[in-house]
């Protein structure tokens, strides 16, 4: 028995976060070799190409969740990992330990504290699947695929850019109002996700201990 669309939403958020983690693996050096070095306006193609180029296997994050249910944001910290071609992992280290792993189509959730290990399928949620595929498209530089799923808007210059993604798909729209990625050159610094009810989460990325 499945739990319906509510679950879809958490998986969506989860995968967005995971994917964002990969995107974040962009280094300053690599971005320098790409795009415009004089601070001119970037294109989606340039952003995606520089992000792909700057991909790293691991990055640390701090994520703040702002909700209408809460009087102050909730914070978690941990690591994001990406193993090509399609394995994404989010490991929460503080304030508790939890692990989310997307391998191909499967999402595995593991929590030591709750003694839970559970596997579900992305395919239960077609809208979510399209998001994940779009992000994978980003990581592999497949701009065409990304543009198929999202309305994309790039703002700013190569030193300070933002990439705004709005889903076309109605199912996607019901879960996410927009995703806002921002960064400098080939390096992703924040990912903000806003839900249609106004709740949002902001993830700040730092280069983690490289392995």
């Amino acid at each position, binding site marked *: 028995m*499945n739990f319906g669309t509510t679950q879809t939403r*958490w998986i969506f958020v989860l995968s967005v976060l995971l994917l964002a983690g990969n995107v974040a693996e962009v280094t300053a050096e690599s971005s320098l070799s790409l795009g415009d070095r004089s601070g001119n306006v970037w294109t989606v193609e340039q952003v995606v190409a520089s992000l792909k180029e700057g991909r790293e296997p691991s990055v640390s994050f701090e994520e703040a969740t702002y909700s209408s249910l*809460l009087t102050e944001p909730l914070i978690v910290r941990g690591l994001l990992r990406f193993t090509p071609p399609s394995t994404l992992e989010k490991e929460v280290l503080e304030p508790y330990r939890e692990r*989310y792993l997307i391998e191909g189509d499967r999402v595995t959730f593991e929590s030591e504290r709750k003694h839970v290990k559970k596997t579900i399928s992305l395919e*239960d949620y077609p809208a979510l699947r399209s998001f994940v595929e779009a992000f994978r498209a980003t990581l592999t530089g497949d701009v065409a695929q990304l543009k198929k799923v999202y309305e994309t808007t790039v703002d700013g210059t190569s030193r300070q850019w933002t990439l705004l993604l709005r889903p076309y798909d109605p199912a996607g729209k019901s879960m996410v109002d927009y995703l806002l990625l921002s960064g400098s050159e080939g390096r992703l610094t924040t990912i903000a996700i806003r839900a249609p009810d106004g709740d949002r989460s902001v993830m700040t990325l730092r280069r983690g201990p490289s392995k």
Partner: protein
Amino acid sequence: MKAAWWPVLVWVALITGAVWFTGTRLSVHSELGDLLPEGTTATQRLLLTQVRSGLAGRMLLLAIEGAPPDELARLSKTLGEGLREHAQIDFVGNGMQVLSSEERQVLFRARYLLSRTVRAETFSADSLHAALEQRLDELRSPLASMIKAYIPTDPTGEFLGILQSWSGWESSATHRGVWMSGDHQRALLVVETKAAGFDADAQEAIQRDIRASFHRVADGPSPSARLLMSGPGVFTVEIQRTIEREVWWLSTLAATLVFLFLYASYRSWMLVLLSLIPLSSGILAGMVAVHSWFGFVHGITLGFGITLLGVADDYPIHLFSHLNKQASARATMRAIWPTMRLGVLTTAIGFSSLLLAGFPALAQLGLFALAGLGTAVLVTRWVLPVCIPAGFVPREIRTDLLGTMAYLSKAKVVVPVAVVLATIVMIWSDTPLWEEDLAKISPVSEEKKQLDQQLRRALGAPDMRDLLVVEAATQEDLLERSEAVMPQLDRLREAGALEGYDLVSRYLPSHHVQQERQQSLPNSVDLKDWLGEAVKGLPFAPGLFVPFLDEVEVARRQPLVDRDLFRGTPLGLKIEALMLEDHGRWVAVAPLRGVVDRQGLKAAVAGWGESAVTYVDIKEESNRLMRDYRNRTVQLLGWGTIAIAGALAIGLKSLSQLWRVLVPIIAGLIVVVGILNLSGESLSLFHVATLLLVVGLGLDYALFFNRVEDQGEERQRTVFGLLVCSTTTVLVFGVLACSSIPVLHAIGLTAACGSLTCLLFAGFLAGQDSHVS
């Protein structure tokens, strides 16, 4: 002379009536379940009800293979969507979501009655605080979106807890959202049909639709993809169709052989056609009688019955063989009538044992044969002689027959020797005398059975062998008992005695438990205080939990739920399958999965000291059921033989004659059993029932062999007639013995051996003095 024609007129009138009746009223059923017995114990009855109409019987297991995993997933999804629209299908499971949003809302409203974690402590300030901290953790996690909407109304997390405790089928692997085998070679689906598993016609229609839907989605895009289907419904259709096909071609073959043989014996097509009159009248009478008594005729009764009635051909054969130049056909008939009458009477006693065996399939067959034989013999007696032209004599009978007979009589000693040998075979043979395993006589192919096992394992579906049965007088008692059993089953599962179970109280709590939960809900004043304390130091927005306070207050007065709440939903179907009313009692049926040690489990359940809870091994139980019926039939066979002996003693008025008639038959029975055993056949119910037929046949032979009136030519005619009778019987049943269906094979082999043995033995032991020329 005119007086002779009135039986013919009566016959024409009756036959016309019977033809009209069968043409307009007769209903031929094809549901195998109609032929199953009621069962003698409550457990057997329940088991048979389950098999007939329960979920176990209505479940079809589907697999799609022969394409890449992604394509299999697509096919499974498209097929599943199509099948969910089908009017005859209750439920399709393939891993996709099964609860609609309306259903979730209904469950959400009933959460405080349904959740196992609701008790007074749940709402104390401390518990609430812990629960709220957990919600915060969840808000921090990617799970946030999933639970966020429920936090203000359900901060203790009851609803998600319920869903989690209900989630089944977890063991199946998934790919792209649908169930797949572990190696991703097969997409798996489960279909629940509305029609019972034994309803062959309905099942066939549904299975045809499923195949058609599959071809619509698969043809073109994936030509190599195949659909596999299994489950009781598939077996039913296979059995039914195999029987129909075999009965058809076997009867055609047997009829052709008999006609050719009859022509060869009498060289007259007219006699061959005349021999059809008693037979066809008998078939008509059999159909009318079975319909009048049972309200329907089963297709299988019709198939078997007509074959069985082939025996009725013996009566016209006796008449034809005794025709001679000196007497009219009517005079000839009168001459052999006393012997024929006694033969029919005793055969009828034999067949009536079938009626009394209490096994519906055999009872229908018994009645059919009884009515058919009676009619056939009456038609032979009163109608047939009138139809035979005066002075008609079939070809001359060979005279060397009597010499052969004399040889036979000298070889009397063969009979005791054969009996002794047969007894030795039965004692020393490796082949068990009785077939104890019902599965061995199932006509389902080994390959199909293996596929079924594979699919069940892959789906984590119970193989419907192990059940826990809980009984009670009322629904409420039943649910309370089931609730008491659950912790016991959980312990067994933890101990590794079983992998899993399903029980109605997982889904539907008893009113008693619901009331307890309801009473543990605090009043709004207390709850507000405790919540106020619990929320201290936690960053929840002020006033966030007002809906929670309101809903608990509402839940304190909400009506208790019963299974009506779930009616028409997949969950409702599940509950209906797990809980049923049987003869005024309530019964919960819990399928067990992965039972390792059946004896151990049985002992463990017995050790609970709860007489209303029993473990049932369906295989064992159904074998016992068949064994019970077989033993009963063996008993009837014994009593029948005694009754026949009594009837014979009165009819023959001579002890030495009685001896000559009975001994070959009893010896014949022993030798037939010996021969069957030697050829590797263990006796089942069907063998035993056919032995009754053998008794009838053998009596007929023995009685004719020992006719006091027989002298010279008449004696030759008798012997000739008996040879023709026995040969036709051996032909008909010999053909049946070639069937691939175990039951038909058993009947055919037994009757063919029996006919031959009884004829020979009756010949060996026939009185010498009566045929000296």
